[in-house]
């Protein structure tokens, strides 16, 4: 256990000092090549999103007849109105569903994962390495593989076409358990837990009142990962849901996109709806950047 993901920021805080040292060589020829490379890639990565923002202001005709990367007739308000009211306001319903799946699923999944990770990190018990092997094995089996089998099982027990069909499978997060184990090993030292034991606290009280507060940054990271995974999930809802009132945004947008009878009319709604659906995620990314890096640092950690 060389470093923990949680103390990464300490090094980045040293960066500015470092930059000043090399300030003199900032504009050599080699650097210009590097900046051109970076700028080209920035254009590549941001252009589709720029296009999405511009296109959400266009009506169906302008989407196809005007140049994609600049404004035409400004139709944003009309687009928003149509997106939110089309089909008895089904889009609003999809937003509420998505928020429900992602917030409730993400939160419960975080709790379940951190309890399991804590047990794996802090207790010695028979079967511990077996459980950990199961967790690692499950990390290697992506949810997409499970979508079809999950559907088969759920239709057997009549769970398809319910909120549970999307919510329950979303509680499983092997990566979350893995991360929780890493964090619990690093951030909840045995001496603190033992001190609480000496004071007479029960094991569950120690978990809630001593360990969980220590693990808070890790908890946010685990929540974030699962939240985004659920928000982005498409295959599972596609196979287990057929009632549009239960759809998450992704599936709703895809059905607007597939519908061959009406797609001609819906392009402006698809584009506007897409823009609205990515805004919460982009805001979360910007606000919680630190936690993203903490989560993605697991490659540098040997647990």
């Amino acid at each position: 256990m060389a470093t923990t993901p949680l103390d990464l920021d300490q090094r980045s805080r040293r960066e500015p000092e470092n930059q000043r040292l090399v300030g003199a060589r900032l504009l050599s020829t080699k650097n210009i090549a590097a900046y051109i490379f970076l700028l080209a890639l920035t254009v590549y990565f941001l252009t589709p999103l720029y296009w999405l923002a511009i296109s959400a202001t266009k009506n169906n005709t302008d989407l196809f007849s005007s140049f994609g990367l600049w404004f035409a007739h400004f139709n944003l308000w009309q687009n928003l109105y149509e997106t939110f009211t089309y089909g008895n306001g089904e889009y609003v319903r999809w937003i509420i569903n998505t928020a429900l799946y992602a917030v409730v699923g993400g939160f419960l999944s975080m709790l379940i994962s951190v309890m399991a990770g804590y047990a794996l990190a802090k207790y010695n018990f028979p079967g511990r390495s077996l459980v950990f092997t199961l967790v690692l094995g499950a990390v290697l089996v992506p949810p997409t593989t499970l979508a079809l089998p999950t559907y088969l099982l759920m239709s057997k027990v009549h769970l398809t076409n319910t909120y549970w069909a999307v919510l329950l499978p979303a509680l499983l997060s092997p990566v979350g358990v893995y991360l929780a184990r890493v964090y619990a090993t690093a951030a909840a030292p045995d001496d603190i837990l033992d001190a609480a034991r000496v004071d007479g606290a029960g094991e569950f009280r120690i978990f809630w009142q001593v360990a969980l507060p220590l693990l808070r940054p890790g908890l946010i990271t685990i929540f974030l990962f699962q939240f985004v995974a659920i928000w982005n999930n498409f295959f599972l809802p596609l196979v287990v849901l057929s009632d549009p009132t239960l759809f998450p945004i992704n599936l709703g947008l895809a059905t607007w996109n597939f519908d061959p009878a009406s797609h001609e009319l819906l392009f402006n709604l698809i584009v506007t709806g897409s823009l609205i659906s990515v805004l919460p995620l982009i805001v979360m990314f910007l606000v919680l950047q630190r936690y993203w890096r903490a989560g993605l640092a697991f490659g540098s950690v040997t647990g």
Partner: protein
Amino acid sequence: MRNLNMRRLNWHTLKRQLVPFAFLAPFLLIFAAFFFAPFVYALIQSFYKEERSGLGFGPPTIVWAGLQNYSAALHDPQFWDGIKRVILFGVVQIPIMMIVALALALLMDSAVIRLKRFFRLAVFIPYAVPAVVATIMWGFFYSPDASPIVAVFTAFHLPPPNFLGKDVLWSIANISTWEFTGYNMIIFFSALQAIPQEIYESGRLDGLSELGIALRLKLPLITPSLVLGVLFSLIGTLQLFNEPLILQRLSSYISSTYTPNIFAYNIAFVETNYYYGGAIAVILGVVTFAFSYGFLRLTRRQSGV
């Protein structure tokens, strides 16, 4: 009295021994219900098939099929075409994405670049975009009547590229690259940030250039992250589904057997043959697991993952 104490002690140790299982119980329950059970159920289903009486009238009966579904899949050239297609996709797309992500991470970590925060965010932001939305957006860039790229080509009187023709696989590869380069870059960057600075000082004293330090010192130290990045990309590629499915409306070259997952989906939900679909899902799960496990074993010595 002594006896009573012993019994209390035993009860106490038993309770203590059960504590970790109490913490694990919810996870194990969910794991059993939504990982283990579906897989086992699909496995069982895959040994059955639906049979209709001679003329196809009357209710179908479910009969034991043994390995028929498996042999049908393994003898279906379209299934193999799908497997070959995703492997070809991975062989080309993963190295390109990894090299770009690695170059970006090394630049972000080097001391000579300004505006790092901005560049880092710009590259990472696409990861926040769901695959469905990413594919819808790129679909507009690919379709001849809406594409700004085609508009630029036309403006310069050049023949516009055909993104949705027989080479549509590479248009899909572009969407994957757009989505996941930033994700991998952050994995590599975080690993680089965890390396203590002192190691570089010794490199500088030995007269290594910045590039030399990057290639000779940094690269070997972040091998575990590289292995992990390639592994997750490999898994994702074998499972390719969302992007080709959404793009299907725009390109007639994306068939109902284009990738193994699309094949399984169509068998199960368009032809409503759950038994055959279950068999394909099982094969795909096993192949994916074997690939990732094999890759981990292969690289284990170098990576220490």
